[in-house]
């Protein structure tokens, strides 16, 4: 997986456009200075776009590109290449590859491959809502995605740059669904472009298998992503199993379940559920005492004595003493929620006393704010800010529940997850809204979650833990 920094050039400087609109150009500085600041390793690929050329149809920034190409970098350049002469001018500047957008669906692609060989040509394919776009994002092309890739494949071109232009620059994440569709449609390797805004995006793209590189633009320029950290994380996280966690909401010694924390109904015996889930391959178990008064401590003890996987327990933890008692009852980790919102120092105290690994912050988010008392009361505290604070105070992981989605089976709140995982170093457990197998994949892949949690889906046997793990594995996400 190659990380390819992208520099868009306009009037000799590095800029970013939003949705391809020249009027929105934001200037970052001189190309060489910007590049120096990015800490790009020697021999890496660099993606350069000559924006003015893409508008006017002839190479403009040749002097800057010549300077960039003199560095120990594999430079690919794109922007309005319409003829063999244009291509030759760029190659004369010392670039390794040219990126041809508009030409990808014209006969020029054949001529370029003929003249320079398939490895020096990178077709750039812009897609909006599954349709191929050409001409600097203005005109719509009549050919289908499959037809374009059939041409690319027939010419023995190994890689194509694919941009979902509905997402470019919007920081909402790469188009995993598009790249996955292309995995079925073509053997051509994909250079993903657009939407890469956090480290987990790169890990998720790498797991797809058909993505050989990703272009990182704005996220790099705005220092949301650090290349060195991404490389290390890519190496380390690629094969680390992600977790599937059934959650037992417990009251009066029974597992119960409601929708958006209301309309509570019985869902079984805690010990029976727990043992079944371990058997099915659950990686961990969460028990939440929904009465919020720690009346379920005996249930915790019984469950802890019947399983050999980690157990996290939350609900009504108000003090270091409550925390200790819960650990003594057999919990490996304890989740704090309302009490920490009232008195944040509780996180630090528990972290000091029992270790960072034992402290889980449970955050119930409703409309972006923290909810307390089982979702009945909405505070003024911003949920993401609170998660960041909890990390600083010593929480080891965040259990992030979307109250809006809880029990709805409408899917995890991916935007909420991304908002959290893009700013946190500690792991996030996605909770609230699981309904279909793909929801679990999306929470990890697009949401950046390190674990996925569900309750009613498992209790009602709509899906088993095994179903979810098999699905994740089939989608390239490592599981135990």
């Amino acid at each position, binding site marked *: 997986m190659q990380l390819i920094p992208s520099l868009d050039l306009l009037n000799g400087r590095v800029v970013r456009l939003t949705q391809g609109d020249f009027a929105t150009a934001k200037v970052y500085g001189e190309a060489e200075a910007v590049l120096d600041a990015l800490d790009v390793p020697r021999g890496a690929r660099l993606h350069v776009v000559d924006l003015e050329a893409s508008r006017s149809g002839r190479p403009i920034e040749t002097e800057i590109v010549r300077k960039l190409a003199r560095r120990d970098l594999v430079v690919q350049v794109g922007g309005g290449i319409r003829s063999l002469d244009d291509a030759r001018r760029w190659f004369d500047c010392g670039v390794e590859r040219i990126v041809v957008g508009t030409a990808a669906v014209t006969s020029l692609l054949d001529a370029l491959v003929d003249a320079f060989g398939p490895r020096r040509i990178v077709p750039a394919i812009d897609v909006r809502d599954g349709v191929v776009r050409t001409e600097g994002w203005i005109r719509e092309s009549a050919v289908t995605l499959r037809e374009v890739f059939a041409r690319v494949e027939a010419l023995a071109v190994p890689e194509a740059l694919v941009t979902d232009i509905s997402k470019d620059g919007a920081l909402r994440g790469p188009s995993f669904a598009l790249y996955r569709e292309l995995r079925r449609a073509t053997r051509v390797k994909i250079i993903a472009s657009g939407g890469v805004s956090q480290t987990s995006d790169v890990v998720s793209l790498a797991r797809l298998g058909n993505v050989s590189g990703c272009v990182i633009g704005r996220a790099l320029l705005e220092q949301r992503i650090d290349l*060195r*950290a991404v490389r*290390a*994380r890519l190496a*380390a*996280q690629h*094969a*680390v*199993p992600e*977790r599937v966690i059934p959650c037992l909401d417990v009251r009066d010694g029974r597992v119960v379940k409601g929708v958006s924390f209301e309309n509570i109904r019985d869902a079984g015996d805690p010990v029976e559920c727990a043992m079944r889930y*371990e058997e099915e391959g659950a*990686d961990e178990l969460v028990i939440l005492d929904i009465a919020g008064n720690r009346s379920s401590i005996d249930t915790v003890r019984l469950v*802890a*004595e019947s399983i*050999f*996987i*980690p157990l996290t327990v939350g609900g009504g933890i108000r003090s270091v003493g409550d925390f200790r008692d819960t*650990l003594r009852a*057999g919990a*490996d980790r304890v989740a704090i929620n309302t009490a920490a919102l009232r008195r944040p120092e509780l996180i630090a105290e528990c972290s000091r006393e*029992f*270790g*960072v*690994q034992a402290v889980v912050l449970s955050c119930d988010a409703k409309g972006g704010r923290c909810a307390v008392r089982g979702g009945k009361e909405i505070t003024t505290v911003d949920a993401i800010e609170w998660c960041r604070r909890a990390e600083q105070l010593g929480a*080891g*992981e965040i259990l992030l529940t979307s109250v809006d989605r809880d029990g709805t089976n409408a899917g995890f709140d991916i935007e909420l997850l991304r908002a959290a995982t893009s700013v946190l*170093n*500690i*792991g996030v457990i996605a909770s609230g809204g699981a309904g279909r197998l793909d929801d679990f994949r999306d929470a990890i892949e697009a949401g950046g979650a*390190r*674990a996925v949690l569900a309750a009613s889906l498992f209790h009602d046997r709509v899906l088993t833990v095994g179903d979810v793990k098999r699905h994740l594995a089939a989608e390239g996400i490592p599981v*135990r």
Partner: protein
Amino acid sequence: MNVTLIDSPVANVANIARALRAAGAELHVTRDAAAIASAHKLVLPGVGSFGAAMAWLHETRIDDAIHEAVANGAALLGICVGHQLLFDASHEMGTTRGLGLVRGEVHRFDGPLPVPQIGWNRVHAKGSLFDGIENGTPFYFVNSYAAREVDSEIASAEYNGTFTAAAQEGRVFGVQFHPEKSSRAGLRVLRNFVACN
């Protein structure tokens, strides 16, 4: 098989006891140094800080008892911080000397992935302790510190680089993961230890 579990105050001994029993051990849980010194098979658990665990072993003279048992041919299994205690030293909050039963030192493993490591991680293992366990099987870890590339390594895993997931020197074994939380694979490791001669 008779197994003596050291009843450390800085460990969740109950969980390990339950797992050892499930793995077939006739368990004796004790803090009595004399009983530990004469044991044939010992388990040393531990969570929390290396320094606190080592201080307790020293105060209770259980450190000497462990050395005596090992010198008399006892098998020993250290778990998590119990595994770290087997090494020469740890660099957790300054340098603290360990039991010195296994050569090597314990370091913090800083890097791009968050520390502590919390979760399942694939273990690449060899040797009798991992009999019946497929290479690459995940075990459950909770740790901020680990030994790296020690001569006695019998299992490794990747987290901010390669670290020692298990070590063995003669009849002294250590596992950095929590077998009592690693479901079937963890119970198999314990069963292998309980059954070893």
